[in-house]
Each structure stands twice: as C-alpha cells, then as structure tokens.
C-alpha cells in the first residue's frame, strides 16, 4: 500500500468516482496491490520469514510503500 501521508492520486480518482456514483460517506481510498505467492516450506513461521524478506528486498519499496502479510494457508 502507498505510505499514508503520501499523495495517492489513484486512490483520489477512485474516491471521486465512488462519490459520483452516489456512494455516500467515502472518506478515503488508497490503491495498493495484492500478490499471491505459493512457496514450499516446512512451517508457517518459515513462510512468514521468507515472505518478509521478499517484501523487504523486492516486493515493496520502503520509501513509498508499507506491506502486510495476510493469511498463510497450506496448499491442499
């Protein structure tokens, strides 16, 4: 997600469009991205550690973006 405090023009455009469509009370919209990553590891902790390293090195730019790691689900 774009860092809070950093102008997010895409978020603004979506916010305006939602308001124009009649959705009331839209106070703020920020546009980020979601990545789905499948990887092999033994434990959830290992998975989270590797995902954090991936985010820090490549997936997120620490100057402009924050990231969160959501659900880690074992593959069926």
């Amino acid at each position, binding site marked *: 997600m*774009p860092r809070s405090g950093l102008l997010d023009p895409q978020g603004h455009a979506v916010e305006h469009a939602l308001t124009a469509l009649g959705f009331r009370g839209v106070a703020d919209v920020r546009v980020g991205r979601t990545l789905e990553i499948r990887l092999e590891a033994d434990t959830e902790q290992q998975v989270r550690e590797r995902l954090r390293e991936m985010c820090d090195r*490549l997936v997120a730019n620490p100057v402009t973006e924050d990231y969160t790691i959501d659900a880690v689900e074992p593959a069926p």
Partner: protein
Amino acid sequence: MKVAVVRFPGSNRDLEAYHAARGAGHEATLVWHRSTDLEGADVVLLPGGFSYGDYLRPGAIARFSPVMGAVHRHAEAGLPVLGICNGFQILCEAQLLPGALVRNAHLKFVAKFVTVRVESTATPFTAGYAAGRVLRFPVAHGDGRYVADEATLERLEREGRIVFRYVGANPNGAMRDIAGIASEGRNVVGLMPHPEAAVDALVGSADGAPMFAFAALAAAVS
C-alpha cells in the same frame, strides 16, 4: 572517455544516449544488462525506457540485473554514473540515490518540453553549465514524481544535491519541484528529463549537450 550505455530489456532511449556520448567525442559502447562488467568504462549511462515493462515498479526488477553489481562498484569508486528517466528510477530502486519516483500526480503520461534550472554545478554532468542556467529538456514519463521523506529532502537541500528543479510548470507533482538529484559523492546523478534527446537544435533544444561534455567528465575521472 569510454562511456558504457547499459541496455536493459525494455530500454528505448539507449541509442539516443549512445549518440549523445559519441557526439561529445566519447568512445561509447552498448552493454547488455546480463554483462557482469562494464568493459573498462569511465562513465556509465543508464538510459530511459521501460525496463522489464515497469512491472512491479519502474526499475524494481532491473536493479537486480547482473550488470548492477558492476554499476554499484563503479559508483562506489566515485566514478560518474548518470541515470536518465528509467535510469533515474533504477538508481533510486538500487539505493544509489535516495527517494523514489512514483506515478505522476495527475495520473497522465506526460511527453513535452519542460523548463528546468541548474541548481548544482558540482557534479561531473553539470560542471559545464553556469549555475542557475535555465534549460529546455523534453520529458516522457508516467512515473516521474520524485518523493522522499522530509529528512531526506532537507538533507538534499542542505548539501546542495538537488541538481535540477522544474521552473514554472511542474510536470508530475515532484516534491520541491525536483527534476534531478546527486549522490553524496556527487558522482551519481539521476534526472527525469531527457538531456540526451536535446543535443541538437534540429530537435528543438541543444541544452543537453553540456551534460556529456568531454572536459568535465575527463576531469571527474582523472
């Protein structure tokens, strides 16, 4: 001087940079991004374009190209590195320059001539200008809005590392009208406008020619 122009998959201003260097009397070579050395270059140019299709973020993937190890060593040795447009984005992603370049504030791709002012002549690429000189350069980018945290901006101002600032209209919403900056050592410079596409009055401006001038680059390397 021997000038290496690095080609990434998706570079598209590489030949302009090559010709600008040759026109200034340098021996220029095109170096593929898979190369792990710069073939003895004195000066490195990272050209404009859309390396890796701008996937993820502009420059985010190119910064891990094999050639970037050699670019890092070149920069750390204090030798001149110039990143133009996508090259600037790559240098920021590679943390050879501080801050980042994000989507233009108005969300539109901008391709036109802009006016910039030379804010620092203490770099190998701007030593040929008079301080405060106003130049006409073309821009062509969708992600040219320079951003950095307040502490970084203050430091750049204090240390005189803002090299170019937009004058009049700011084409992308860049913080403090920043069009180009330099590294702490002043040898690494990045800018969004295209001086390599402004080296002949025939194409609307020759204001970019001094950036590639032989004497200043030779002095920086010696």
